[in-house]
């Protein structure tokens, strides 16, 4: 999309385009009660939300920084801006982006307009039209698909009923922080028995607020419904914010099914600390597909709380850690009720001195008779400088259960390389082929365009790693 088209779309107000606000607001550096109140005031929120924010702030202060995961000592909490109106992000120019980010966009071959969106230079104006037509279809079925701020404004009662009920601020320091200062994210409600056949993509939901540091997403899938939500993208998302701390709360009602797919590739200055949890009721199915490529440190363990008889949960996790990166990822499954099933599959790749950790929890409560769970975590090391660790925790308080755990660590083999090179593939291409083969079982679950982009990205990473 050329620059001219881009501008002509700006003037295309008749398509429902919202002009960016004339002003923007940027909180002072650091965090205090006043700033939280200002955020709430700027968003024109109901009192109860402000109260939740303020109490979450107290909880945030009271909790120590977790020491069990990655090294968080590099986060300068007092140096961060906790709330920036979206316009500020758009005010950056294309030229301000680091060359390597622009270069990557070029090599992945994504269109100009999309590059600007990803680079944080502009919002995805073009998708406004697409979004409108999707909205029309969804509205007919009674499906709500909004950004979280609009969700709160338009459906305050629904939000109040579910907000923080699955992930309370007390859960951990960063869920408390998010609750205090959240902005942006998605709000989705799918009525009883409604199946949303097309994956809902955050991509279509436009709005730079989407890219916030403290996104808050709430999804409610009512009885017997189905929805697949896809967020993120494989292109690196450049941000000057060094902390991304999101919360995703999902409610899967009786017999419903929710699949949540994320591929994240933050620039390598970002600490990515995310809390994600699905509460799955009777015969419901909750699935996380979670890919983490970028960031300096990611700590993310999507979890399924199996609360109803026969509920099922699955977590598929891919992590790729390159130079100076630490991916501390995995999944959690908690079985509360009989005949619940969970499966966690993790594939991690460490290259160029990068570090991956699998961290997982399987908890089976005494009430969960006949529960079944399976954990498979495989790690691939590309070179001797890279590292991988596994921290599985199992807490089983019921004897009538079926539990499987498999873990492998393999090093990219010289013999495999020699074999592929003997077919004419250069070393980097051979490595990429082996890595892509390794993650293939998870990649095949991704929407096609994501799978293709991911494979290409791995190839680029490999080419970079061998110069």
């Amino acid at each position, binding site marked *: 999309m050329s620059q001219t088209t881009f501008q002509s779309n700006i003037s295309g107000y008749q398509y429902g385009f919202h002009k960016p606000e004339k002003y923007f607001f940027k909180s002072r550096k650091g965090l205090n009660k006043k700033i939280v109140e200002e955020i709430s005031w700027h968003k024109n929120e109901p009192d109860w939300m402000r109260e939740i924010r303020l109490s979450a702030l107290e909880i945030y202060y009271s909790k120590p920084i977790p020491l069990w995961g990655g090294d968080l000592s590099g986060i300068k909490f007092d140096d961060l801006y906790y709330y920036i109106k979206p316009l500020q992000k758009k005010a950056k120019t294309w030229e301000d982006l680091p060359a390597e980010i622009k270069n990557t966009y070029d090599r992945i071959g994504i269109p100009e307009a999309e590059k600007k969106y990803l680079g944080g230079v502009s919002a995805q104006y073009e998708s406004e039209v697409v979004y409108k037509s999707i909205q029309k279809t969804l509205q007919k079925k009674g499906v709500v698909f909004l950004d979280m701020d609009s969700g709160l404004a338009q459906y305050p009662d629904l939000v109040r009923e579910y907000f923080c009920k699955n992930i309370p601020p007390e859960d951990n320091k960063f869920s408390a922080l998010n609750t205090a200062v959240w902005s942006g994210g998605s709000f989705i409600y799918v009525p009883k028995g409604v199946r949303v056949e097309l994956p809902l993509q955050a991509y279509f939901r436009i709005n730079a607020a989407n890219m916030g540091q403290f996104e808050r997403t709430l999804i409610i899938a009512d009885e017997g419904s189905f929805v697949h939500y896809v967020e993120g993208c494989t292109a690196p998302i450049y941000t000057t914010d060094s902390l991304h701390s999101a919360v995703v709360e999902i409610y899967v009602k009786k017999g419903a099914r929710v699949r949540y797919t994320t591929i994240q590739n933050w620039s390598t200055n970002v600490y990515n600390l995310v809390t994600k949890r699905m509460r799955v009721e009777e015969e419901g199915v909750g699935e996380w597909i979670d890919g983490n490529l970028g960031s300096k440190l990611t700590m993310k363990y999507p979890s399924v709380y199996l609360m109803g008889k026969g509920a099922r949960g699955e977590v598929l996790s891919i992590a790729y850690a390159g130079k100076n990166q630490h991916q501390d990822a995995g999944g959690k499954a908690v079985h509360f009720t009989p005949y619940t099933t969970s499966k966690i599959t993790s594939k991690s790749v460490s290259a160029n001195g990068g570090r991956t950790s699998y961290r997982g929890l399987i908890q089976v409560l005494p009430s969960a008779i006949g529960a079944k769970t399976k954990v498979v975590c495989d790690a691939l090391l590309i070179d001797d400088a890279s590292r991988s660790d596994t921290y599985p925790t199992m807490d089983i308080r019921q004897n009538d259960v079926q539990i499987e755990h498999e873990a492998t660590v393999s090093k990219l*083999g010289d013999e495999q390389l020699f074999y592929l090179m*003997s077919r004419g593939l250069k070393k980097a291409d051979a490595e990429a082929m082996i890595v892509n083969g390794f993650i*293939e079982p998870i990649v095949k679950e991704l929407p096609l365009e994501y799978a293709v982009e991911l494979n290409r990205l791995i190839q680029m990473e490999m080419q970079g790693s061998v110069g």
Partner: protein
Amino acid sequence: MSLIIKNLSANLGTRVILNSINLEIKKGKIHALMGPNGSGKSTLAGVLMGNPSYELRIKNLELRIDKKNIIGLKPDERARAGLFLAFQNPISIPGVNVANLLKTAYQLNKEQRTKNKEQKKTYNPALSVWKFNEILVKKAKALGIPQEFLRRSLNEEFSGGEKKKLEMLQAWILSPKYAVFDEIDTGLDVDALKIVARGITKLKKEKTGILIITHYLRILKYVKPDFVHILVNGEIVKSGGYKLAEIVEKNGYKKWTINKSQIQSPNIKSNPKPQVQI
């Protein structure tokens, strides 16, 4: 035009594996290399393809594909220069299937792999996925490889015979200038053996120069090599025609192994030569 090997000597650590090997393989000719276990046959295959595990003595060494010097070239560069190796024990690679691998490998070169003007004309690196698939499926069928094998992880959960057939398929698709088949016949039943032999014969007709490494006469009955060489303790002790293979089948290698229990390489021990890691 030929694959030329002159004065090839290889060590693994301090152990001498190959000593002054000389071979010239012309296009469209089949050479068989026979020898007892541990005589260095597979090392020769690996060294030709550029396996970095071995050290070569470079003094007087010559390795050429047609006129191109391949000393010091990496395995992929040798492959793109037109060399192919069918592995004795093909390794499994999870998540990588032979269809994708071959498509990628096929597209990598034109100049180096095409053996004559005719092939240059028909070779199309931009062959559509659909068209390529058609060729692949056709050739797989001719080799008795079920179509679904093409999409399965490479060599994973394949039987020994299936792996060998897949190696043959790769050789046939890539149609190299020179191909080395390292014990392609082991683990094959009679029917599979005939099929693979037919594949090799097809390559010969396409003017590929071929080196078959084997223990047994049985594959040679079907492919009828133009030359047979006997490798014992890292040296070629005898070269001849097809008859030589029959003699080996009858009498074994005793004739050459007696008095050869020690590797003869006085010049290496007394007079170390500069070595190169390839």
